């Protein structure tokens, strides 16, 4: 998908949006997107546009998530749910290879693995700006690292990204602080802004790649005018003003590096259950276990990769002990990696401000609050 200039944002009416979906499918893409399931907005296969969370909104706060009906029929009037696109590109469980014992050792097969079957073209429909940023973060880990990850790269190459600006941030969102939203940053094939006002329910569409631009050209549309742009700007301005949280990122890596022995870590360790929910819902967490799965005879062996969490004891266990035995050291590892050492490793923050770890923490631990407390205690003259 080469870079090209796509100067003319277009407007697609709500009535014509199904044509966009048809056009995406006609290109051979399977459609994946958000849908309401089990009382949450989750990501999955979309049959039709009607499968989107139309008319739904969410209420999120530390440790709490609730869906409710809004009094309108907007498609994207909600913030992110527990699932993230990470699960599509970096599945929670994946077979990497298998081996069969032979007289002379073993023979390894790599062609029957999940990676080999990742060849499907998929369209990610309804990617929020923070999630687009999270994909870019994982790209740095899995595609631009020293050793590119084959299965992730294969899936990523075949993914078409249709992003949608955020109009309804939740109570735990802080993308503005992280510079990842609520307007869509770079990296999309097609970006939409949902507009619903006296001029009708419609979408401002911008192609980011040739494919995205072609898709727009292939469906009924008109050129966007100044009033459409003003309406889109108003959506962003309103979302910006309603961010649920904020995080002061000033010199954050340095702050974390000098507060490693802050009493605040003891405080959060009293509350943290080390349940690992935060790492599982986080769209950038990339750690994995590489595990051996054998049949009873031991003649057939498979190597699986599964999501891992730095909150478990086993994560840092070497023969003779565990490096990070206390809850204090494990929470500290997570936060200092996310917001600090990630910069050294990948040239970016490991947090995009999606708020999931706050919402889905059973005891409502809020990383923005933890950082605020660390900063407060770090002030010269602060009581320890």
């Amino acid at each position, binding site marked *: 998908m080469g870079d090209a200039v796509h100067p003319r944002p277009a407007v697609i009416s709500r009535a014509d949006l199904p044509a966009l979906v048809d056009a995406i499918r006609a290109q051979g893409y399977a459609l994946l997107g958000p849908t309401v399931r089990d009382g949450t907005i989750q990501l999955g296969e979309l049959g039709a546009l009607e499968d989107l969370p139309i008319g739904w909104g969410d209420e999120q706060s530390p440790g709490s998530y609730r869906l409710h009906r809004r009094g309108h029929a907007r498609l994207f009037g909600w913030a992110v749910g527990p699932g993230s696109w990470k699960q599509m590109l970096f599945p929670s469980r994946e077979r990497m290879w298998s081996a069969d014992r032979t007289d002379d050792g073993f023979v390894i097969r790599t062609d029957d693995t999940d990676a080999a079957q990742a060849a499907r073209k998929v369209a990610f429909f309804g990617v929020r700006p923070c999630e687009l940023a999270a994909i870019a973060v994982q790209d740095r880990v899995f595609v631009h690292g020293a050793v590119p990850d084959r299965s992730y790269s294969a899936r990523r190459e075949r993914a078409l990204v249709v992003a949608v600006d955020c109009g309804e941030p939740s109570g735990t969102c802080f993308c503005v602080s992280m510079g990842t939203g609520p307007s869509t940053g770079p990296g999309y094939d097609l970006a939409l802004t949902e507009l619903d006002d006296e001029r009708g329910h419609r979408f401002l569409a911008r192609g980011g790649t040739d494919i995205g631009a072609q898709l727009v050209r292939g469906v009924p549309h008109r050129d966007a005018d100044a009033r459409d742009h003003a309406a889109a700007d108003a959506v962003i301005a309103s979302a910006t003003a309603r961010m649920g949280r904020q995080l002061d990122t000033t010199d954050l890596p340095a702050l974390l590096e000098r507060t490693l022995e802050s009493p605040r870590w003891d405080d959060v360790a009293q509350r943290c259950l080390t349940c690992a929910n935060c790492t599982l819902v986080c769209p950038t967490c990339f750690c*994995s276990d590489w595990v051996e799965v054998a049949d009873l005879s031991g003649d057939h062996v498979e190597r699986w990769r599964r999501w891992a969490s730095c909150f478990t004891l086993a994560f840092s266990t070497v023969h003779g002990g565990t490096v990070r035995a206390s809850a204090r050291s494990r929470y500290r590892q997570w936060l200092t990696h996310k917001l600090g050492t990630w*910069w050294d490793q990948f040239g970016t923050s490991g947090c995009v401000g999606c708020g999931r770890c706050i919402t889905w923490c059973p005891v409502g631990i809020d990383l923005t609050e933890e950082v605020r407390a660390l900063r407060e205690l770090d002030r010269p003259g602060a009581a320890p």
Partner: protein
Amino acid sequence: MQSRDQPRGELCVPSPYRVVDRTVETADTVTLAIAPVDSLARAWEPGQFNMLWMPAVGEVPISISGGVGGGATGGDRGGDGTVLLHTIRAVGAVTRALCALEPGQTLGVRGPYGRGWDLDAASGRDVVIVGGGLGLAPLRPVVHETLRGRDRYGRLAFLAGARTPEDLLYMSELGQWRARTDLQTEVTVDAVPGREWRGDVGVVTTLLPRIPFDPGRVVALVCGPEVMMRFVAAELLRQGVAPGDIQVSLERTMQCAVGSCGHCQLGSSFICRDGPVVTWERVGAAMGVRER
């Protein structure tokens, strides 16, 4: 064998190797000499490690402790068709299975991985090599390497320690090294519960004062239990050695060995990829924080 044709690392697939020789080092430690079954061994550097795989048991990181073949001595850098040496202590499921391998049996190998000892940094300087217990395994090839290019270095010393005389690795080689005049070799043990021992008793740091080196132009290569490395580094720093001139080889949990699984992190370093050999300059601060 399919795996040989795969692009390097991406799928992290082991290749079959065969055990060609097995030497019992101590009660729980053996050195395996292994050779590729149907592929070429890859070139390696002293200080690097391989992931050794016992099918249906598991895979663990093990340092390369030498190579033989091609007419070179043990500790030679690897190359086409060479044999690799791995010294393994049986501490758990995988290492027990590896130690039980007999000549003729096969295992899986992927690697080599990581950054080894930076000998370029040691060129023209005194070199002090300090090893404790199994830490001798990744240091053995560096002793060979420095002896091969002996005139590139100033004074050369090797300090080896173990818990008891029975735990000392590479006994016959240590004897040969002690007899050399171009290498000062000192050996100590923490305690002597069993057989007769005429050598030194005490932790390895007690040997440091015996080594005449110039703190301003020395490079120290250190591997052993983490507490031992902390003590050695602290002592060297106290004597005025710069943190950048102290190289240590660290052990962390490793599953991928390519900077992807995240397990081996220490501060901003992935020990599998940025190490296992790192300078004290890089990790000293992180090593100073408990449970980092």
